[in-house]
């Protein structure tokens, strides 16, 4: 968006250096993920793994997929996808998490 003028239909060209830097970060991220999995962090194993994955995914979307340089509409599209995934996951889990509560507690 920042450097995207209205009449410039030649897409924004990103310096190749940025691509190499992102690639390097992604590779390091993968190494960290594998390393972190060998640690014993209990429930935080999954938290760490997902945080790294989300960080990597964000980089891919922002730079490789040019989201950072895209229209607001595209950003809204991406946000919508995350939002609807969240609806699917969270409302399904409201059932599974609370199912065991119902029978004997609080009676």
């Amino acid at each position, binding site marked *: 968006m920042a450097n995207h003028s209205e009449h410039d239909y030649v897409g924004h060209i990103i310096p190749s250096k940025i691509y190499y830097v992102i690639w390097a970060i992604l590779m390091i991220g993968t190494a960290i993920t594998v390393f972190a999995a060998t640690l014993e962090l209990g429930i935080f*194993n999954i938290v760490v793994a997902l945080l790294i994955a989300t960080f990597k995914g964000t980089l*891919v979307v922002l730079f490789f*997929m040019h989201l950072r340089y895209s229209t607001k509409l595209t950003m809204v*599209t991406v946000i919508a996808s995350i939002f609807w*995934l969240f609806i699917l996951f969270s409302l399904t889990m409201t059932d599974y998490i609370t199912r065991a509560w119902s029978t004997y507690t609080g009676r």
Partner: protein
Amino acid sequence: MATSEVEIQVAERALQHHFADMEQQKETSTFGMWMFLLTEIMFFGGLFCAYLVYRSSYYHAFVEGSQKMNIWLGATNTAVLICSSLTMALGVRAAQMAKPKLMIVLLLITILFGLGFLGIKAVEYHEHWTNHEFPGPNFHFQTGDPEHPASDPQHTEIYFSLYWAMTGLHALHMVIGVGLVSWIVIVGAMGAFTPEYYNPVENVGLYWHFVDLVWIYLFPLLYLISHKHGG
């Protein structure tokens, strides 16, 4: 920007009748691709939801299943995909900069990485298949540690069902992706793309990165659940 006459001709040919100008066409096509990816996310989302539900209910079974995964092959494949995404991104950049030969070379490397990924995946699949780790009547799960027999093979089978479904769907997307990139290479070699008209390259690139993105989540969720003890 100086454009040669040939390029203008190509651009005019590329403009479909119902668009006012190239800008509208490009933005429309990119937005359409993002919409399609939104659909794809929900498509995988159903499987991720099933994964979430069963993993939260049958953690032990999922840990035991996950320990059958070959982390090194999985990590290698992650790296392969990330490399392929880099060459893909550079390929799109080459198309933007009117360097068709560079684009074709980069996309050919992308295809090689893609095939490499599928090859490694096939090795893994073969291993699981011979170990009776394909769900169904032939499924037979052993932890490989006589001290700790499988605690809940039934739900480990569900882990494997989801593993095969998720990675299988992902691999199918890879196959389609390789096909699409090959198509871009062929059409690109015939000189179809210019800095004004490279929407197909851009869109195939978006698709390729999306498939990479899915794997970035699949890898930790399926391979790295926990590696501390035998169940």
